[in-house]
């Protein structure tokens, strides 16, 4: 079996033993179900727009909850030394951990497909817009998980890792508000790195390769930085 999958499997099983997995599932399934009822069932809107928008905002808080312990806990408990003295590449460790949290995220998204199924059965939703919504939220989640993973390599405190990840995610989300106030190239740059700007196209049903590229670039960057940092031994005691 591929070593990335072995790490992912162990990581997933650690979520089963940890209360955090259940807390995240409860927050997501509970809140998403509640707002789906309010917005779609009660008001009769045939689409997932409100539900997915809510999930996109919730992800800023729930994704760091998933990623905060990935490496920081291993550093705290010392088990990172165990991993790094086994015949496995650092990239396999990082990719395995990433794959595990991505799977959890996709399960959370997958659950909303049941809601979507209800919408299809009862109404006549705009397919393209809804597909755009799903692609957008998945790409946003991928980037947030990767950033969170990198931040968890930087510290041995889960709390610090989680809080910084929430802060960074929020910054990416709201930076376009500042971008609107700044004229010239700096305003353009801030606007280009804002999650809001790139997500808005998806939420209109427009799938632009530039937006896809932005989230994928962030994802790859987070993973690469995680590998580079973990390989650098300065943090090892």
């Amino acid at each position: 079996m591929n070593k990335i999958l072995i790490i992912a499997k162990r990581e997933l099983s650690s979520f089963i033993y940890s209360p955090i997995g259940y807390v995240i599932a409860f927050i997501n399934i509970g809140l998403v179900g509640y707002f789906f009822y309010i917005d779609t069932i009660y008001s009769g809107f045939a689409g997932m727009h409100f539900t997915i928008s809510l999930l996109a905002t919730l992800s800023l808080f729930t994704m760091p909850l998933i990623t905060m312990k990935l490496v920081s806990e291993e550093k705290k408990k010392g088990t990172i030394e165990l991993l790094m003295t086994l015949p496995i590449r650092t990239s396999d460790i990082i990719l395995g951990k990433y794959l595990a949290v991505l799977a959890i995220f996709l399960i959370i998204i997958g659950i909303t497909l049941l809601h979507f199924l209800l919408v299809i059965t009862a109404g006549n939703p705009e397919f393209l817009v809804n597909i755009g919504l799903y692609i957008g939220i998945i790409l946003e989640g991928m980037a947030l998980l990767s950033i969170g993973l990198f931040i968890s390599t930087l510290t041995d405190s889960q709390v610090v890792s989680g809080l910084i990840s929430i802060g960074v995610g929020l910054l990416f989300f709201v930076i376009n508000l500042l971008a609107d106030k700044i004229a010239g190239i700096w305003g353009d740059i801030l606007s280009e790195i804002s999650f809001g700007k790139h997500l808005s196209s998806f939420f209109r049903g427009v799938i632009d390769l530039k937006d896809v590229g932005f989230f994928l670039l962030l994802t790859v960057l987070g993973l690469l930085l995680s590998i580079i940092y973990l390989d650098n031994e300065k943090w090892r005691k």
Partner: protein
Amino acid sequence: MIKIESLTKYYNDFKALDNISFEVGQGDIVGLLGPNGAGKTTTMRIMTGYLSYDTGTVNIGGYDPQEKPIEVKKLVGYLPENPLLYEEMTVKEFLSFIAQVKEVKSYPDEIERVIEITKIKDRVNQIIGTLSKGYKQRVGLASALIGNPPILILDEPTSGLDPNQVIEIRELIRSMKESKTIILSTHILPEVEEVCNKVILIDKGKIRAIDSIEGIKNMSKGAATVIIKCEENKKATEVLSKMKYIEGIENREDEIEAFIKEESYKKEILEELVKARVGVFEFYSPKVSLEDVFHRLTIKEGDNE
């Protein structure tokens, strides 16, 4: 199997290892002996590929851990000082995980083998976090043995174990002598005398001695240790510290231990002490043990600073 030459390692400005060199062959059980902070764990971590080094060469089974870390890690079974285990897993789940990462073929059989060797059969389905320290140590050892690596690096393998467990682990290490190269670190001197056939004495990042147990003990022949009990310890220490044939002094509450260059100087020392009227009522040389040599070599260095 293991060859280390002129190895130096810095932690920022602190020189943790200072130009150390040694070789370990197959069938050797080598004791890396030294006080806390001597550089034992750093040396072991470099050999496992966990830490890098600044200068020198490290050869583990034909590979440099900095250039071919994966190859080195395939050859080495490592037990860190405090066994590092995923405490939420059961023993069997944990060992399966290690075996899969080590790409052991038919790993269920291999797990059975190490469970048998380390005598943890009655705990295989128990959550690791609920195990006693002794059992955790055995699980750590079992994980190091998975895949039957030719080199074992064991950092304080008996620390925290009860006397019966210590005896069992030592027997286990001895039983693997023929087929493996084993390096174990310890500051428990009887452990070295019981288990190892070679000793590397390390202190403050430097190697003080490399020899067989007997060879190390022989280093003290000619030289000697004397225990002095007297009424005025402070005055006696002052007198002793002025003598040129004294290599080191350790002043304990009720006695003074002095390391002298040659046994023949004992007479002069006693005469001087009597002359100084410090009230000597006991003056004798204890039987030379590994502990004496260890003391002599480490304390001597401390006095020079």
